């Protein structure tokens, strides 16, 4: 089978899934991945999808906007059906309590057993790749990604579930059920290879700040270089401290690892002059101030480079930061962004955080299958 994608904007989960099932009709898929607006009742959409597509493996989550083919959508559900020509084998596991340090032990034992290896560290990283979908309001993504990295060398890529900017409840889906304070892990053995795209539209600005006092569990930096964080950030940009927050979208900060940028996005200035981020920052971390570049142009180059490297893309999952979506909306370029993917079998969603080796912000992470 060739990969099929579909979307529905029907308002009831039953009608929406019926429409998806019609549009995705054909040979039985091995894996179905779906992303649904939080306007659908999560338990109902998960159950309906399971009824429609089992025995395929299924996983998904709620969103802050959906992506499919050549369009960006709201209040819809999008799905991709992947067959044996793309997915040789897949195992989906649920991590049900993100606060439990041992929560990944069982899921990874099960994954190892499914792929007939002694433990997840023995999985061949050239052939296996992971998808991670996580409750986007859990604040637990950093720890989750660290624990995944402790258990396996397989690269996991994914996103934090959204809820259409309501910030009340986000859900992840597997096995016909909806979960909170949870993550879904899927390990896939690709039939014909895979590649990863990480694209963020920023370059370094030339100035750096060192986090000298932090409240890591609150994702707050109290001081940069021994000064109140907002003041130090504003000084580095040459703007008044009172206008620091206005710079956040175009000048986030970034960890730079051998030239590769991992964006840390500031969220707000607190009453005490600290900066709260969308991900945690450890004391002693050196961060580069970043400057925005052209998102459309950068994304085109990233996807085209991957298409060339793989010799074609037969399926693409796109985890696109909600901050990127908001910027596209603000500048009237959502249609242009959607069009980048026209003709590609792609689904994705606007996330509350992106995952690739760690938890990152203002980035699009994508999983491409040949």
């Amino acid at each position, binding site marked *: 089978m060739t990969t099929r994608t579909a979307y529905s904007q029907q308002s009831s989960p039953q009608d929406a899934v019926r429409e998806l099932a019609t549009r995705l009709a054909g040979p039985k898929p091995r894996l179905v991945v779906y992303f649904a607006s939080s306007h659908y009742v999560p338990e109902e959409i998960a159950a309906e999808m399971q009824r429609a597509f089992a025995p395929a493996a299924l996983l998904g989550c709620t969103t802050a906007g959906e992506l499919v083919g050549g369009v960006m959508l709201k209040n819809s559900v999008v799905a991709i059906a992947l067959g044996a020509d793309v997915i040789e084998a897949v195992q989906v596991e649920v991590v049900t309590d993100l606060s439990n340090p041992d929560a990944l032990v069982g899921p990874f034992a099960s994954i190892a057993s499914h792929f007939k290896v002694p433990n997840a*560290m023995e999985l061949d*990283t050239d052939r296996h790749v992971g998808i991670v979908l996580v409750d986007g309001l859990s604040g637990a993504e950093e720890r989750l990604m*660290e624990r995944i*990295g*402790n258990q396996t*060398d397989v*690269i996991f890529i994914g996103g934090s579930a959204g809820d259409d900017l309501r910030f009340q409840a986000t859900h992840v889906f597997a096995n016909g059920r909806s979960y909170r304070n949870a993550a879904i892990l899927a390990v896939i053995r690709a039939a014909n290879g895979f590649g990863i795209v990480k694209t963020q539209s920023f370059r370094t600005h030339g100035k750096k700040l060192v986090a000298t006092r932090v409240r890591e569990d609150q994702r707050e930096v109290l001081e940069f270089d021994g000064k109140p964080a907002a003041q130090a950030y504003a000084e580095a940009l040459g703007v008044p401290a009172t206008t620091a927050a206005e710079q956040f979208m175009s000048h986030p900060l970034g*960890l730079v*690892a*051998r030239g*590769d940028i*991992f964006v840390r996005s500031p969220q707000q200035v607190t009453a005490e002059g600290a900066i709260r981020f969308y991900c945690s920052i*450890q004391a*002693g*971390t*050196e961060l580069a101030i970043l400057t925005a570049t052209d998102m459309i142009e950068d994304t085109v180059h990233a996807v085209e480079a991957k298409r060339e490297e793989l010799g074609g893309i037969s399926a693409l999952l796109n985890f696109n930061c909600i901050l990127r979506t908001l910027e596209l909306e603000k500048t009237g370029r959502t249609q242009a962004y959607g069009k980048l993917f026209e003709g590609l079998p792609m689904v994705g969603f606007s996330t509350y955080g992106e995952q690739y*080796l*760690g938890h990152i912000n203002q980035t699009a992470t994508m999983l491409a299958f040949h």
Partner: protein
Amino acid sequence: MAGTIKKILDVIISKRGKGDKILVDIIHTRLVLRGFDPDKFSPTTPDDAELIARVRKLALELNVTL
């Protein structure tokens, strides 16, 4: 004393990287994301007891025996 952190980071990279260039790059990035940029430590970096304790804990979490 100096260079202990660099030594520990090198062991982590060697054992988790398994001589595979891609895995070495991945573990390097994971270390950066977890607060230890291997490029910022050298054999002359003065030993800091608190940092050494943190990097030892990190090695343990990564299932690396020192």
